[in-house]
């Protein structure tokens, strides 16, 4: 009698293993995924640029002009919860993500492939470029200039500015250099600076986390979460200056080395 229970359990485990496949068969997804190419058939530079153009119109509303996220996921991280292989991304973009705001796309499969090429590029700009500087010297400059007072690399540092653990994969060399000398040139929606001049009391500044007509929420420069009612605010200044100080004053060599160090940060995987 007893053995029957365990037989049952074993059968149930095998069945569970098979389950994903079965459910796909149910939805017709299996049949469709059989048709999806294993690698992107549209991956010339021209295809990627067309993908960019489509992305600007179709996707930036949620994913930001440079894919940095906002209402939609951050696509610059190079890490995909729904899978990062070409067919995975193709499915995500074509079918959307059920139960979330990520919509299915009505574009043709060819156009979707082109966007997939661009999405992949977003998450890996730094991979193809070779930095000329000295990364070890750049690492010392990173420590000397107090970058860790605002940024995180792995377990070190804080979360006031963006996590730099994988910035060398996400960002190209030109972007990295521009971030250091002209931080205001590009500020992602998730790291916009605000400064609140109050009707009474000292000003508050930091990174804006949220806002509506009544209040604004921010992370102040000490890393504290704050919420301020607007009826107490005399003036609300946005974006300029960025909270990221400019390092224009660094020598050309130092900048090159710092960029080389940042480029060497490819993240955990």
């Amino acid at each position: 009698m007893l053995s029957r229970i365990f037989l049952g359990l074993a059968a149930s485990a095998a069945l569970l293993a098979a389950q994903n496949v079965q459910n796909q068969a149910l939805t017709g997804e299996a049949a469709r995924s059989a048709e999806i190419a294993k690698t992107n058939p549209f991956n010339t530079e021209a295809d990627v640029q067309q993908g960019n153009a489509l992305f600007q119109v179709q996707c930036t509303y949620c994913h930001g002009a440079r894919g940095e996220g906002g209402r939609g996921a951050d696509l610059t991280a190079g890490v995909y919860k729904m899978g990062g292989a070409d067919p995975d991304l193709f499915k995500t973009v074509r079918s959307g993500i059920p139960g979330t705001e990520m919509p299915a796309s009505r574009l043709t499969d060819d156009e979707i492939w082109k966007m997939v090429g661009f999405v992949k590029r977003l998450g890996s700009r730094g991979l193809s470029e070779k930095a000329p500087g000295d990364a070890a010297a750049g690492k010392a400059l990173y420590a000397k200039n107090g970058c860790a007072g605002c940024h995180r690399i792995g377990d070190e540092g804080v979360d006031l500015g963006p996590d730099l653990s994988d910035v060398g994969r996400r960002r190209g060399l030109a972007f990295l250099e521009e971030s250091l000398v002209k931080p205001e040139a590009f500020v992602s929606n998730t790291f916009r600076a605000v400064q609140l001049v109050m009707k009474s009391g000292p000003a508050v500044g930091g990174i804006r986390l949220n806002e509506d007509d009544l209040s604004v929420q921010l992370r102040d420069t000490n890393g504290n979460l704050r919420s301020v009612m607007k009826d107490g605010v005399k003036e609300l200044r946005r974006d300029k200056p960025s909270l990221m100080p400019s390092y224009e004053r660094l020598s050309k060599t130092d900048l090159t080395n710092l960029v080389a160090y940042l480029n060497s940060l490819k993240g955990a995987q």
Partner: protein
Amino acid sequence: MKKWSVRLAGATFAMAAAWTLSGQGLPVTSERLLKAADEQGNWLMYSRTYNSWRFSGLNQINANNVKNLHVKWLFQGRHIEKFETTPLVANGVMYLTRPENAIYALDAATGRQLWAYEYRNPARTFNCCGKVNRGLAILGNTLFMNTLDMHVVAVDARSGHELWKTEMYDYTAAGGYAAPGAPLIVKDKLIVGMAGGEKGVSGFLDAYDPKTGKRLWRFHTIPQPGEPNFGTWDGDSWKTGGVTTWNNGSYDPETNTLFWGTSNPWPDYNDDFRKGDNLYSCSVLALDPDTGKLKWHFQFTPHDVHDWDSTQIPILLDTQFQGMNTKALAWANRNGFYYLIDRTTGKFLMAKAFVKQTWAKGFDDNGRPEVIPGNEPTPEGNDHTWPGIDGGANWMSHSYSPLTKWLYVFAREEHRVFSKNTVPHPTTETPDRPVAAGTLPNAGAYDPGLGGARTQQVGGPEESWGKVIAVDPGTGNVKWEHKVLTPPWGGVMATGGNLVFGGTLEGMIFALNATTGERLWTFSANGPVFASPISYTANGKQMVSIPAGDVIVTFGLD
């Protein structure tokens, strides 16, 4: 443009605090957790304090002005699954979990989001009863959450940055494991329970290092070969005996004891292969939190066949019992009896039914029930038994008020059918007949785990109803009763304003007078309440929060 007046990069900044969140009240040290009762405006752990009273001392909202209570803000989960969470509040920031395993930090005054973290589970997880999560624990600057795929994650409370994640167990093993409960910090340890009692798992309670996620101890809720009480399981039944730890526990610093309730043995309704008491199922465990060693246990329902988990929240209180001041454990159990136990020794003191029950004649000196035959599940279905499958109480929190010195229980009166599968089940999972998410896959063979509930009639108030009762903990006497239409899935909270808050399955949120049970205020949230309320202050004002459906509703006076 002028640079900020503050100097950047490593310098410190003086900030006005009066009209903003006063810092974040971080870090939350273990000393603060021990004295959590004193932090009137905060809610720092699942049951607010280690004695699990779920009592808020705040009294701005009281019997005189509760009629003016109104909604201050909503938090919309925008998820198909309902909230079962108890939010935490530390100095104006609310931290909560949203299904499946997301964490949100909100401004507790306005409900505006500060940050979000999302843990993604695999598509198929093995939760019995919805892809839910019941909340967080906090220590230092770190929040902790259990996941449906059996991980524990640690997240920075200031940013939502994930610090570590540890796998507790293979979530696909046996019939499937899950971890929907909230963890509990005790001193320097993170205590974590698990679920899966309807699927032939093998239960445990774990402790982890909050800094690293390294496991420090594991207590097996089913004795392993050679351990005491191993013989309470027939044959190999111990291997798949269930006995999970899916809710939250309590801690008594005076005796350094951790209390935690355990679930039913498996198969739930069919006991053909598991003769014996099946320890430590349907029990309360008293453990040394430093080592995970068992100090004592008390089994409420030996050899359970009704799925009457004892995963209620243990309530630690001192009360008069037969004229003696007693350090007690007060427990309104799923099996329909209210128990009083000496929490220093585990000795049974008394038990008294708080809902209609048909299964026990009485108790011997050790608290062992004298079982009335004829209440067992049968193949054709047994409809004589009270309480029903979901019990007289379930996981939802009870509350104790030091003002009235009464225990408040949102009890379930329910008449259901208990059945048991003894024939091979005809269906198997096929493409045209997939298993619905969250249900038990049937392997096509005889599955003794199935059987059980046939649901009650919808809108049959003579068959089932709910009631908030005030219980004198020393005697089990009911001081007042407030009846509601359907058996509840929400808990209650007593407050310093002498009110008892709760919500019904229909989404009616209410405040009762704690002394009389009179209903003083209601709000129609119109989403089922599957959680217990909390109270805190934002900018010095008392607020009350309770989830209804996939929305968190927060009330205030002005």
